[in-house]
């Protein structure tokens, strides 16, 4: 642990020194202010609150700083989150990034089972899990192939929350298919997780085709070692009305199959990132596999507005999470977003609300970028 700290300290000094010229020469400043209303409906009660958020970003060539300040009238809390604070430079063809940074291994799926942080990205939404304190080494082999090595550092006062986490990703293009191999190792006092996976994305005629396979080796102080396998396959397609030149209808569908054992808990995080509650204990019963189907349909009403409809369906019990949305770009810099989510299942089904988990939620947000 000490050697890691020493390496990080040396890297910091070297990067600050080499990046200082770029820091002084050019920068871009921008951000976003937004305000919105959240209404959350439980089985017997509901909560409504208004929130305001300010996001500020300062981008130098070799460094990036981003903070988000938010406030909501329910918790009466003013919260400031540091999203990005990193410096970056190149040494012998290798790009080194040090500090708080987003680590994202997306390949175009709605839910990514082979990401560096599971649940970090879902439905094009970001969660804080994506932003980690780390050093990333990124080496491009040619214009389409590269390898990345990530080592994360954390120092929580609670030692049970500390962990060592490493990630490796190799990416290339094979016959116009974007192919990647991902490996993540995370060890802590309470659990050890080893994950590896493969993903691909390409085209079959006019439709996009993608998929992934992942293997999770998971053990805790109370659960013996277990292997969990999961795979997914998806497709996307655009259809244009009026002989191909009118309004656009975009469709995307994904099928996930996850082996049902204790390792399922690790993957369930990627569904939690989608804002849909799932209880792993409930899922562990029944069939050998947990099968879900995801669909996403969006239609451009005109150049400024679109409607979308996202759904997750458990193929075991038919329960569904429905998430319709509407977006309207009111001016060049102002956007209105309306999102609704609704869980259709009964109490004992996979996608169901209850006393402690909301059955439905509504979000209306107005944002302005500068």
């Amino acid at each position: 642990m000490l050697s890691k700290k020493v390496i990080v300290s040396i890297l910091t000094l070297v990067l600050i020194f080499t990046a200082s010229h770029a820091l002084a020469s050019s920068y871009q400043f921008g951000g976003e202010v937004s305000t919105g209303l959240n209404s959350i409906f439980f089985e017997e009660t509901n909560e409504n609150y208004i929130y305001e958020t300010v996001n500020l970003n300062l981008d130098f060539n070799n460094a990036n700083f981003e903070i988000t300040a938010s406030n909501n009238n329910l918790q009466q809390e003013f919260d400031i989150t540091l999203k990005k604070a990193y410096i970056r430079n190149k040494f012998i063809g290798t790009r080194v990034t040090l500090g708080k940074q987003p680590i994202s291994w997306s390949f175009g799926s709605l839910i990514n089972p082979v990401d560096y942080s599971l649940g970090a990205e879902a439905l094009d939404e970001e969660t804080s899990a994506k932003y980690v304190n780390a050093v990333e080494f990124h080496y491009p082999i040619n214009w389409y192939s590269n390898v990345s090595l990530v080592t994360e550092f954390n120092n929580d006062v609670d030692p049970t929350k500390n962990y060592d986490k490493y990630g490796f990703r190799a990416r290339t293009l094979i016959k116009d298919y974007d192919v990647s191999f991902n490996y993540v190792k995370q060890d802590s006092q309470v659990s050890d997780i080893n994950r590896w996976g493969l993903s691909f994305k390409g085209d079959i005629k006019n439709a996009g085709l993608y998929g992934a396979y992942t293997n999770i080796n998971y053990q805790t102080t109370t659960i013996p070692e277990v292997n969990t396998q999961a795979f997914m396959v998806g497709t996307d397609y655009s259809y244009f009305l009026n002989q191909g030149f009118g309004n656009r209808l975009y469709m995307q569908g994904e099928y996930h199959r996850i082996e049902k054992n204790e390792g399922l808990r690790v993957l369930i995080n990627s569904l939690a990132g989608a804002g849909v509650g799932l209880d792993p204990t409930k899922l562990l019963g029944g069939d050998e596999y947990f099968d879900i189907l995801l669909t996403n349909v969006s239609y451009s009403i005109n150049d400024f507005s679109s409607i979308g409809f996202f759904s997750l369906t458990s193929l075991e019990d038919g329960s569904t999470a429905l998430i319709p949305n509407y977006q309207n770009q009111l001016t060049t810099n102002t956007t209105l977003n309306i999102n609704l989510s609704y869980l259709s299942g009964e109490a004992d089904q996979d996608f169901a609300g209850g006393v402690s988990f909301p059955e439905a939620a509504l979000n209306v947000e107005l944002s302005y970028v500068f």
Partner: protein
Amino acid sequence: MNYKKIAVLVLLSVFIFSSQALAITAEEIIQQRDDNEFLKSARVESTMIINNAGRELEKKMVNLIEGDKALVSFTNPMDRGTKFLKREDNLWMFFPDAEDVVKLSGHMLERGMMGSDFSYKDMMESEKLTELYNFELVGEVEYKGRPCYKIEAVKVEGAEVSYYKRIAWIDKERFIGLREELYAESGKLLKVAEVTEVEEIEGRWYPIRTIMENKLRENTSTTFVIDSIEFNPEIPEGTFSLESLQ
């Protein structure tokens, strides 16, 4: 010998010879237009104004083009940091928040780029039309005060193009397209591009302001304005790579 007859014969010969020498074919007109408008490589700073029933959105971008490769970086606040890389028919997108590169499906190339009436292909490709269409000179007309050749082009069999037929008004002196109508195979008019401003840059005429109207969508148009253009700039090796997207 009757001198009058000789004079008439000489004059007639000169007239026939000169008219043959001055005749220009449709292919030659398009070739000369390609010489002006085809970009072997370029760095372009531009603004795209999307108009729909009086509402306007403005997007700014920097576009690097070299052959069938292109790198587009958006600079307006809403899309700042968003980048696209196109190599042949492969399209990648960089998401600035997640700082992640995702390969987009091929069908996205036909989509309106960032909500505009220009597709990703329109914006990121500079194609030599002579290789894709058969041309016919159908007349000489005046368009907005400029003498023009009117050319009709039908796609070469097997060529992969977005529009089956195009009718173009090409300035006779500057060899630059001033108006173009784009048709489906059914004969339906799909889009109309109208050049409202041209400029002579580095010895060649180039359209500076173009308005594209999608005739299948009511009250919409996209104006594409070149803020600056540099022909054949020095583009560092490795520019058109996934690495340069990040």
